[in-house]
């Protein structure tokens, strides 16, 4: 590398990045069609018989039924919440693929965050401690060990 890049290049890069991100974050004007809504609900509803597939993905008869029912309800103007409530009242809480954020279930969202925070803090503390303590003092005994190991090879 010849000459270190100037701060101006970095500033330009930051500008370009910011503009790109702003553009990307803007909604792209596509209207949320009823199909999108149906698909969004179906994607997060578990197919009761199919083991780990959502209603959107599965071809089991019950999945097709539920999809059709969601479509009917979306057409008749129910809100997403109402549709989900109905499905939950029939099939139980387990039909929701997205675990609720409240109660005991909410732990599944909270625990990873807590654990990662604790681990990060621990690592940061470790970094700081390693910085503070100097290198392990090298004694003559250490040098003797090294010399012996080197001499053996």
């Amino acid at each position, binding site marked *: 590398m010849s000459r270190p890049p100037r701060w101006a290049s970095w500033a330009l890069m930051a500008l370009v990045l910011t503009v*790109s991100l702003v553009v990307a974050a803007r909604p*792209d004007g596509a209207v949320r069609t009823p199909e999108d809504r149906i698909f969004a609900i179906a994607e997060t509803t578990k197919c009761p018989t199919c*083991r780990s597939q959502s209603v959107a993905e599965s*071809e089991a008869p019950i999945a097709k039924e539920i999809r059709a029912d969601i479509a009917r309800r979306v057409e008749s103007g129910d809100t997403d919440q109402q549709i989900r409530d109905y499905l939950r009242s029939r099939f139980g809480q*387990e039909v929701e693929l997205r675990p609720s954020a409240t109660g005991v279930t909410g732990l599944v969202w909270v625990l990873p965050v807590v654990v990662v925070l604790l681990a990060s803090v621990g690592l940061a503390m470790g970094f700081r401690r*390693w910085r503070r303590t100097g290198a392990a003092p090298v004694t003559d005994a250490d040098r003797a060990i090294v010399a012996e190991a080197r001499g053996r090879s």
Partner: protein
Amino acid sequence: MNAALGSGGVALGLAASVVGAVSMAVALAKGRTDLLRNSRNYALLILLGAVVAVIAMERALITRDFTVAYVADNGSSRTPAVYNVATMWSALEGSILLWALVLAGYIVAVARKFRDRLTDPLVGWAMLTMFVVAAFFFFLMVGPADPFTTFDPPFGYDGPGPNPLLQNHPLMAFHPPMLYLGYVGFTVPFAFAIAALATGRLGEGWLVATRRWTLFAWGFLTVGIILGAWWSYEVLGWGGYWAWDPVENASFLPWLTATAYLHSVMVQERRGMLRVWNLSLLCATFALTILGTFLTRSGVLDSVHAFTESGIGPALLGFFAVIVAVSVGLVGWRGDRLRSPSRIDSPLSREGSFMVNNLLFAAFAFVVLLGTVFPLIVEAVNGDQISVGVPYFNRMAMPIGLLLLFMMAVAPVLPWRTASGELLRQRLYWPAWIGTGAMVLAVLLGARGLAPVIAFGLGGFAAGAAGRQIVLATRRQGWRGFVGRANGGMIVHLGVVVVAVALAASSSYVSQGEFRLAPGDTATVSGHTVRYVGLETEEFDERTVTRALVEVDGDGVYAPSLSQYRFGGQTIGAPSVRVSAVDDVYLALQALPAEDEDEILLRVIVQPLIMWLWVGGAIMAFGTVLAAFPGRRRRPTDPVSGPPAAETPLTPDEPVLAPASDLQRSDAGAGSESSD
């Protein structure tokens, strides 16, 4: 005859592993290290037992010997021959047999690789551990998961054949063996970890041994996972390749911890640190393979992949408990003596970045494990049935994935020991511009949504950093700049970037629709036009296939189909995909026309960049092969683990500053300008 032969093989394997384990234990306890040499013989006997059993099973399958209950349940005279071979691992008992075979192969490979050091107690303990694991799996085949139970077939009996979903695709033949070569391969580093903890010794030889084997197993597991995703995509009919299904998670969890290990082991080599952490990672990786097997075989969790429930659940859980007890116990007992007082100089260094990397991978593994078992925990606590599905995993994995992409950009350019911000800015200048360019390009091409666009930017950033390292290495060393651990690792990183970008694109920009089409009708999805031409039917022995001929974009006819199986009445769809570098047009025939009607129900899914998932996977595999290429020949006189006589557990075998000959200089961070 086959059943008897097979049972005999299993019995031989069990006997050899039990006797081998006992004799190793006795030899180690009594200090009779000369007897440890026998481990090679026991290993060969175990392999013989496994091979005999596998030959018996394959013979029974190929000849449709329905006196073997497993063949009667899974084989069929209507199944094509090559699928019969793969039928061995299409159901529970046979897959345990495959596991035993692969494990036996690994044990013999270890015995051969360490043939000059079999009398070293470190190796002795490793062989002992592997014999115990082998004994467990052979015990499964004698007890709960016996593949050779007999059956008295009535006259004219024909088996149902494997699940039709499994017959569809030749990938079914390769996916499990690849996966097992990876999965089972983690037994070897685990065995050496136990040996290190038990003897209180970690030598340079240990390090290199476990690293190589872990890389080997990791490579196969990566390929196995990618093949599994490819099979899901091609066969299951909903255009998806990853559902965070318990079986998928079971294979992904050890992959995560093994990847963490492959990075943190480099910190151990350089600074002698993180020894106990690495040992724990290896134990965790193996424990996760057993836990994953339990979760998917015991029936406690639903899964698309589920074989069947069976009695092996308690056995596997018991084995898992034993492994956990032994690992945690050994770490608690010995761990502090193995810790080294070393420290790192600065978090802004490669060591520091690898530690952050490990934290991220551990967090990822925690999230995946928690999400998979959480429904069970909640049920135990308050009896509620809940689901934790794709929305949770995607939401949690995404920030971790983005952070990992960022680390992939930063870590390779960081030198060991310490770096300044100035150095980082200097080295990352061009990679950062590449990342910016990637982001701008994506936005210009119409990509919207913060998460995928950031992913594209970070992907470019990481690719730029990896590319930089490779360019510098080849400049210095010519073609050798592509091989060796660090350079191969950069190629693997490039593969990961390709996969990450493909993941972001294909999951964020899906378009789909379901259409009722009469012959001649067209439909449009995301700029692609499909035209339904007509139906054609073909009869086979075991099924009737009805194909819908669909023309895509006026150029090429594709034929998604529905197969009606005579035996069992199942209707299985076979999707058809038009692959291109830009996107895949995925066609799935949902419903045939009703009586007197001619409209089919066709689902069309367009996902961008799917092809690059598989290409990225291939690049990762290729990079792994390059990374395994030895960087520099080790001299036969290089020091290895200290002699067993000097039982001095407080002394680390390697001094804090490792002897120069041990460092593989050619991959001392190839491309790193810092001298070391």
